[in-house]
């Protein structure tokens, strides 16, 4: 009894933090060990990536630090390793641990950048299609259908190859990160647009939207201020899955030679560069970055699954 009255009294003045503390989100997180481990691993990886310049034993971008004689050294638990290179070295003599840390950074930047672009485009198009309906809706959704009928990777390969052919490999290498963000971002907006449109259609029929229209608010304000905040949960859920997808797309493109250049490797291009040496016994150059990629994508997907379960209104009992 006392708790209920005190919570009622505090709710009128509840701060953001207090709301979060009482939320179902936190409650379910504290009872889900998988989500906790996933979040811990994910935060660790992001921290490593962000702090790479300070954590990494050497700078793989600095040619002066690279010793070609130290190439293809195995990791520390294998005979013939050099204690200076914990995870061994790659074919060019770069310290693998440092390269992975820097590569993780590139992969995450591309993953989040591409998702930010996808989300911006998809949310805008989805809101317009769902709210305005009619011809705008038909046009945007047919565009989405057409784009979905191509595989993402195919679109990315075509655009990437075209750019490389027109501007040359050197220009491509310089602008590789923004280009990959652009390619992967443009290729996947229909996912967002469709999800957002479906949520908008559900929200649009609710009376608070009519109330906003009766008030005389302009459409743009109704879309972004009233409808968008109520469609955020599905956007969050697909965002987690899409980050993982974008990272994999980037790795796949890099593996095909259309992604990050060797001089500025991402996890994908590291795997690719090591793949040539796997037959000659240097398995670690491919395997270790591969494991890092798998773990990264896995924890993001597990977090996404947990988030989807929490935000699913049918399971939500709050």
């Amino acid at each position: 009894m006392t708790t209920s009255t005190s919570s009622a009294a505090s709710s009128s003045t509840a701060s953001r933090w207090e709301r979060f503390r009482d939320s179902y989100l936190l409650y379910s997180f504290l009872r889900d060990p998988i989500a906790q481990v996933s979040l811990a691993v994910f935060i660790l990886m992001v921290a490593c990536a962000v702090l790479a310049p300070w954590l990494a034993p050497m700078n793989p971008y600095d040619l002066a630090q690279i010793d070609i004689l130290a190439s293809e050294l195995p990791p520390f638990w294998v005979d013939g390793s050099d204690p200076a290179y914990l995870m061994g070295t790659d074919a060019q003599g770069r310290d693998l641990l440092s390269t992975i840390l820097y590569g993780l950074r590139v992969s995450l930047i591309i993953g989040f950048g591409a998702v930010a672009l996808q989300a911006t485009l998809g949310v805008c198009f989805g809101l317009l299609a769902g709210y305005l309906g009619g011809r705008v809706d038909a046009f945007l959704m047919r565009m989405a259908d057409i784009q979905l009928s191509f595989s993402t990777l195919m679109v990315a390969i075509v655009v990437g190859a075209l750019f490389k052919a027109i501007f040359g490999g050197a220009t491509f290498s310089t602008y590789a990160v923004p280009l990959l963000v652009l390619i992967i971002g443009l290729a996947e907006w229909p996912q967002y647009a469709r999800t957002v449109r479906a949520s908008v259609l559900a929200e649009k029929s609710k009376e608070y939207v009519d109330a906003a229209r009766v008030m005389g608010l302009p459409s743009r304000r109704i879309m972004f201020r009233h409808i968008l905040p109520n469609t955020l949960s599905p956007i969050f859920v697909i965002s987690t899955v899409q980050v993982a997808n974008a990272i994999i797309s980037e790795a796949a493109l890099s593996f095909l030679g259309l992604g990050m250049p060797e001089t500025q490797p991402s996890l994908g291009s590291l795997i690719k560069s090591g793949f040539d040496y796997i037959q000659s016994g240097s398995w670690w150059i491919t395997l270790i970055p591969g494991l890092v990629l798998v773990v990264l994508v896995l924890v993001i997907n597990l977090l996404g699954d947990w988030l989807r379960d929490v935000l699913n209104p049918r399971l939500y009992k709050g």
Partner: protein
Amino acid sequence: MTTASLSSSTGSSSGASKAPETAEPLLSIRGLEKRFSLSGDFLEQLKFKGGKLVREQKHVHAINGVDLDIRRGEALCVVGESGCGKSTVARTVMGLITPSAGEIRYDGERIDDRSTRELLPYRRRMQMIFQNPYASLNPRMTIQQTLEEPIRLHHPDWSPARVQDKVAEVMNAVGIAPDWGARYGHEFSGGQRQRIAIARALAVDPEFIVADEPISALDVSIQAQVLNLLMEAQQQRNLTYLFITHDLAVVEHFGTRVAVMYLGRVCEVAPTATLFATPRHPYTQALMSAIPRLEDDRPQHIRLQGEVPTPVNLPSGCVFHGRCPHADARCREEVPTLIATDQGGQVACHGVEEGRI
């Protein structure tokens, strides 16, 4: 339309001051029609029939030919069973739906063909209260934000302190403590939410309020409170109501005049007391006889035959002829228009016109 004297019919309980009868109505609806397409987009309308490609369209005739006048200071109740188009009339008046035909005049100015921007000055004068208080408040906005929004939109020059004062004033007016403004809609009960929705409508000081079944989603114990709040607001702010309901008890308590709708048409408009005492249209008579009463000596309950016809294929002539005990050949062919009765109302019935009923 009729401007017959209403002096004999001020028996309603609302006590609103009567404007002179010669005054122009605040809102006038003429020949309003709304059809909703059932056939999807252009490609889905194409059908292959008898070797030919034909375009086929089906419509739901939600309202077909509604004429209504709403006078200043009155509460016009619109009653009718589900699907008769009462809510469509309300939403069309507010510009949420574009009419298929007909015109709506507010204070003499046509408003049904205006854009959102051109309607803005009218939004301040006419507001709407919705049926479901659980859906009409944005779940992601606090009450303070919800109430501030219309004020900021319509008075961009007001200082923040003045907006605050206005919000506090309307919250007090509907009986919600202003310090609850930091809460979200879901923290309130249904009755409180409807009060907040009323506060939102009152925030811009409108003169005309459309209320679309504002109490039917509430508990019976709360209904009377909210109804009294609406009547209080009417007296204090000199409001005009278009009140959509299916609850005849509410009409008797609240309405100055009543319009009865059936299948998208108005069949009778009359001052409340007149309509309840002497319903003229056969449908109104059946409707009135369905009200449970304690008296024993009232006439027998009129049982209508059959069902309401589908609004997709409207019956010819009078929409009620299939179920009317008085229907004749003329009713089956000719659509009746509203004619003035000697009691100050209007009725759309050939039988009444000919003196058969």
